[in-house]
């Protein structure tokens, strides 16, 4: 009888006893599929990185696309790219999901009856070329901004096929700012702001850290300007002027909650005080004397609802500042007088000598720019029936144009609508023909965010579906229309076109590097004499009602383009920590007036253009006469962007606030957003919101600490004298877990936090022979709360998305969350549940502490002691290991963790929430956790392990900087440092040894965390 081999044995077990679950490590059915021809550069198991460019917004950050076996699995910033220098924001990180989105159009689609049905490219191109021939110059193109090469070529194409024209439409475009620069300096370009050398930043509501022109770059410069270690006296001061304490404003030293629309007047009033105090250049003082004479500071103070003393104080500081930068309003405060407001702010920049220093005016660029008034003109033409074929690409006008423009009705009058979207959206669903575009990861392209900075987009993924790049599609159409048409747009393919456009450069070197980066300095500008004479008055608002409707760009969803990316929906809003839904922010006083509204009560917001109902968030960070609603939600199409995800296809997720905006422009014809008053009524309904931080009151606990600048300046000597000899035993005496001691410490002696650092050395918490103890330092003074790290962590570690309903049940899976604390907090109301947002949020002296919270890799971890199966344990290199295959799901560890960083898989989230083809983007280095398993951060141990293999092969230890975690890698401000604590010269050890600011979260519990937080520095109000 032949020997029964183990494999056969298992087969028999399977055949005779189906329930026997003892199948070991071998599974006889799996196949090994080799390459037919293995590309030289691909070694299975080793990642390749390719440089490319992010296409999520106009900032055009450089990317490094990490690919494994030909699949991009993570996007990181390109360290050589001058814009982002290695960092990448949350939106950029999440954009990888576009390529693997389950919604994507898989083939061209044509309308049959009232449904879109798949067709072939040949058929689709034939149909479209026929339609264009028939419509002739009644063919129009409406689309988002593309790269310079594509844009120039498309213009040629429009001419070649005899179309009527092309309109570039972007919901957020800096038209007013360009107009202002044109008027003041005669140069039609958007100014570039460099904050890194500034000593006073005044932001008139541009929200430059979240939705401004280049958030990642500005975050880095902002952190540089305020670097405690490198700048004297705490570095730059930051004043935020605007009606809402946004994420950007939460980083300010001072918040001036001016009446929305008064920014231009305030800028001039501040300038007047500054010049009165001797600030500004000689030319500046002379140049603006006439217009400033008209400004009555007291009257402005009244109009803007800002105390006169505040204007004078900040104005004097502005006069004394050596290199101030004033940032003109962004989308949220773009009123009907946006161009005049931008002109006022830019004039102040000029008069104070900032132009040429922190503010540069680049040379105007060629090519078509977004234009709102052209868009509206096209809508009119559509209404009159004079558009026969409309091609829509790179934008979603049905969603993002206000219904009051009549776009939807106008679209119905266009006989043939073509969409070139890669995923279904509200606009593509109305199309007669869909010609799906590649995603940015599948396509060629380029970008020129600034003169001289040319960035390349290269495909890093073979197209997953039968899609074609926009330019290739149009090229096919031209060819189908005849050789004479094709001859007018001579190129072989989009790739050839890009190579042609880059002919003067070493194309392959540029591809490897990501582009050609030779930034040109701004042009020398002089003030156009007559430009100072303009009328700056408050903008009129439509309608009536007690509230001004403030529509701010979503910090994560931007103009709504992020809504179909599950990570951006699941990542909490940086301010309110709410996920997945729409909400309106009102102040506690306003809530009181409306009948005592509380968090989650549903209100109806009514303007002349329409009404919508949504739950409220009551917080002090909003003016009493303002209701703030973020743009981005309210889609009716798309898996995660609409209600489809919760089983309600066709139903909107949240509300689209654009629906209630009138269709009005500013003086320059640009799109205005701050337009209308709103009536708010209480509906009496209440909703439970999916929120991830139930209170921003830290109740005096040591979760987010702050140190006044004065105490920091007193320095180590002071600390030594007071506490040096104490060497208090952790957890003993005054630091016993009683609130008063901490409250006291946090009020007067926040620097006392150094005690714990002295009391234990985290680098000891390792095996005696281990050369490593991994640790992290997080600088709350640099952290802006942008959440790039959160999304980076999600994607690096295959963390599951759980959806709105599960978040509501508290089953959010993020390993890294960002906690936002308002001041020290207090114990008002005893142990009862407090309002989520403490009253202190309304204070003009901003005291928001942002403290990222992840597994602290405790040296004395409470979780380890309670695991019955040693699934969590202390690893040799000091990590708090989590062995998924060993976990039996008792959840004891999560119950015992004081930081609440352990996340439990209540369901097979990965299976449920990763529809095809999303599994292709999973990181193969990280196990996908199944149902019933606990999971948590292990400092990206897969990266540590990879670095260790390399180091071991070379018979050395891992060098400092050789390995970093996904969160630290993505951080624009370098707030997160990761490294080996045993190496006392490592960046992390040096940063963490800061004696005054260093503290550990909940250190009184003596958990011996490996994460050292550095307290936020309170720079106080701005003084002249």
């Amino acid at each position: 009888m032949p020997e029964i081999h183990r494999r056969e044995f298992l087969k028999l077990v399977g055949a005779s006893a189906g329930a026997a679950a003892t199948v070991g490590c071998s599974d006889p059915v799996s196949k090994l599929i080799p390459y037919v021809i293995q590309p030289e550069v691909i070694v299975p198991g080793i990642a390749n990185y390719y440089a490319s460019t992010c296409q999520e917004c106009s900032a055009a950050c450089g990317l490094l696309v990490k690919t494994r076996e030909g699949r991009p699995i993570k996007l990181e910033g390109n360290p050589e790219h001058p814009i982002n220098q290695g960092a990448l924001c949350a939106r950029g990180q999440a954009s990888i999901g576009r390529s693997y989105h389950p919604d994507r159009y898989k083939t061209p689609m044509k309308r049959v009856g009232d449904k879109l049905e798949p067709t072939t490219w040949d058929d689709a191109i034939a149909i479209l070329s026929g339609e264009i021939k028939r419509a002739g110059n009644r063919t129009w193109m409406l689309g988002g901004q593309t790269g310079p090469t594509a844009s120039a070529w498309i213009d040629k194409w429009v001419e070649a096929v005899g179309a009527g024209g092309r309109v570039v439409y972007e919901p957020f475009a800096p038209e007013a700012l360009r107009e202002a620069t044109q008027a003041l300096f005669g140069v039609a370009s958007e100014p570039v702001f460099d904050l890194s050398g500034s000593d006073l930043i005044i932001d008139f509501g541009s929200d430059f850290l979240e939705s401004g022109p280049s958030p990642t770059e500005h975050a880095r410069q902002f952190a540089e300007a305020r670097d405690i270690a490198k700048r004297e006296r705490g570095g730059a001061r930051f004043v935020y002027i605007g009606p809402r304490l946004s994420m950007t404003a939460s980083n300010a030293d001072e918040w001036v909650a001016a009446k929305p629309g008064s920014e231009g007047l305030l800028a001039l009033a501040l300038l007047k005080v500054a010049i009165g105090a001797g600030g500004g250049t000689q030319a500046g003082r002379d140049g603006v004397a006439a217009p400033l004479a008209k400004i009555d500071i007291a009257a402005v103070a009244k109009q803007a609802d800002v105390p006169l003393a505040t204007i004078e104080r900040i104005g004097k500081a502005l006069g004394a500042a050596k290199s101030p930068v004033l940032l003109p309003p962004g989308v949220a405060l773009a009123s009907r007088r946006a161009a005049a407001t931008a002109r006022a702010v830019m004039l102040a920049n000029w008069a104070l000598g900032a132009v040429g220093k922190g503010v540069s005016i680049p040379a105007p660029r060629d090519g078509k720019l977004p234009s709102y008034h052209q868009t509206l003109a096209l809508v009119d033409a559509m209404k009159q029936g004079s558009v026969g074929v409309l091609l829509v690409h790179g934008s979603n006008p049905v969603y993002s144009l206000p219904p009051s423009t009549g776009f939807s009705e106008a679209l119905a009058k266009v006989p043939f609508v073509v969409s070139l979207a890669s995923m279904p959206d509200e606009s593509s669903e109305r199309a007669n023909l869909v010609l799906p575009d590649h995603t940015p990861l599948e396509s060629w392209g380029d970008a020129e965010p600034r003169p001289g900075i040319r960035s390349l987009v290269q495909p890093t993924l073979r197209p997953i579906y039968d899609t074609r790049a926009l330019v290739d599609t149009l090229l096919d159409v031209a060819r189908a229309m005849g050789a004479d048409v094709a001859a007018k747009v001579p190129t072989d393919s989009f790739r050839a076109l890009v190579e042609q456009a880059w002919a003067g450069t070493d194309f392959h070197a540029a591809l490897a590097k990501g582009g050609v980066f030779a930034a040109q300095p701004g042009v020398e500008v002089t003030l156009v004499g007559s430009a100072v004479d303009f009328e700056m008055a408050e903008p009129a608002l439509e309608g009536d009602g007690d509230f001004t409707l403030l529509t701010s760009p979503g910090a994560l969803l931007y103009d709504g383009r992020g809504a179909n990316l599950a990570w951006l929906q699941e990542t909490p809003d940086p301010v309110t920590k709410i996920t997945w839904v729409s909400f309106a922010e009102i102040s506690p006083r306003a809530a009181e007036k409306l009948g005592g509204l509380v968090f989650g009560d549903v209100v109806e917001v009514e303007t002349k253009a329409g009404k919508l109902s949504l739950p409220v968030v009551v917080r002090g960070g909003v003016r009493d006469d303002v209701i703030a609603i973020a743009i981005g939600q309210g889609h009716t199409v798309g898996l995660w962007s609409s209600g489809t995800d919760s089983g309600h296809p066709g139903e909107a997720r949240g509300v689209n606030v654009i629906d209630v905006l009138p269709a009005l422009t500013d003086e320059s014809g640009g799109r205005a957003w701050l337009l209308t008053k709103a009536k708010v009524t209480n509906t009496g309904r209440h909703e439970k919101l999916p929120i991830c931080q139930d209170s921003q009151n830290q109740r005096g606990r040591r979760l987010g600490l702050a140190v006044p600048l004065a105490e920091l300046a007193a320095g180590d000597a002071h600390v030594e004298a007071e506490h040096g000899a104490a060497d208090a035993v952790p957890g003993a005496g005054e630091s016993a877990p009683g609130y008063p001691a901490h409250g006291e410490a946090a009020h007067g002696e926040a620097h006392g936090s150094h005690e714990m650092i002295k009391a234990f050395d985290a680098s000891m918490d390792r095996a005696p022979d281990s050369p490593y103890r991994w640790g992290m330092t997080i600088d709350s003074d640099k952290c802006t709360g942008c959440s790039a790290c959160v999304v980076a962590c999600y994607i690096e570690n295959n963390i599951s998305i759980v959806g709105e309903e599960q978040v509501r049940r508290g089953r959010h899976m993020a390993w890294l969350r960002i906690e936002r604390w308002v001041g020290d907090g207090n114990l008002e109301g005893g142990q009862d549940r407090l309002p989520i947002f403490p009253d202190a949020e309304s204070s003009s002296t901003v005291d928001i502490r942002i403290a990222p919270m992840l597994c602290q890799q405790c040296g004395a971890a409470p979780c380890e002691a309670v695991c019955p199966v040693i699934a969590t344990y202390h690893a040799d290199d000091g990590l708090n290991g989590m062995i998924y295959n060993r976990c039996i799901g008792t959840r004891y560890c999560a119950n015992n963790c004081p930081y609440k960083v352990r996340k439990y898989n209540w369901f097979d989230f990965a299976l449920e929430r990763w529809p095809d083809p999303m599994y292709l983007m999973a990181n193969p280095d990280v196990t996908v956790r199944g149902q019933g398993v606990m999971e948590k951060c292990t400092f990206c141990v897969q990266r540590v392990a990879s670095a260790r293999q390399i180091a071991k092969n070379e018979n050395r230890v891992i060098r400092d900087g050789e390995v970093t975690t996904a969160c630290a890698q993505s951080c624009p401000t370098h707030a997160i440092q990761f490294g080996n604590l045993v190496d006392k010269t490592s960046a992390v050890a040096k940063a963490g040894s800061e004696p005054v600011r260093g503290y550990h979260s909940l250190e009184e519990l003596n958990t011996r965390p490996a994460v050292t937080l550095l307290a936020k520095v309170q720079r106080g109000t701005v003084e002249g």
Partner: protein
Amino acid sequence: MGPSIGGRFRVSPNEFMFRKASHLLARVRRRAVEVVLAAVIAAGLVFGLATPERVDAQAPAAPAAAPAGPRSSQKAYDAQTAASDPSTPGPVQPIPFSHALHAGEYKIECLYCHTGTDKSRAAGVPSVELCMGCHTHFGGDMEGVQTLKKYWDEQLPVPWNQIYRLPEHVKFRHNRHVSAGVDCQRCHGPIETMDKVYMTKDTIWWPWLLPSTKPEMGWCINCHRENQASQDCLTCHY
């Protein structure tokens, strides 16, 4: 020491032994289930209720054209026959490829075909192109090579049956083991003598005389222990 090693705060010896004991008990229980099942199956065999079933080859197409090039050696033909024999251990592969012939007789380095072994966690299976690199010139008269050529002509990968499969939560790295000087044979058995590859039987009796069979974790750990390699859980599981 294994998981007990930590910093200053570690599991007390008593606690550790207690945990170890409960873990051991769970393991004994698991083994008991296997033993009982084995008994049931043995009984089944005795009574003729079950017949061992073999993995069938994905029948290669019959050779169409006349053999080209020099005639292959008798050894090669014998190896091909042995590799297609379903009665020997291991699954019959889509191509009756003989490791005994290539690695044993011709002494081709393992790394010549499994190119990732010293670079990557994955050893890698040779691409069809790599096979064709030699077989354009040799072996055209053999059925197996003709099947290979068919794959090449159609530009299809060869769907090899996997013999050694580790679950997703085990992060094994070939390159580390190669650079540490571990022979391929340590895990893969005398591969240079196998016409048809199968998983060799290897059982160690550690600890407390409980069996751990290749490639279960105890078997891995035993080798790590013998060679003072890391036994930290996070080395392989994350």
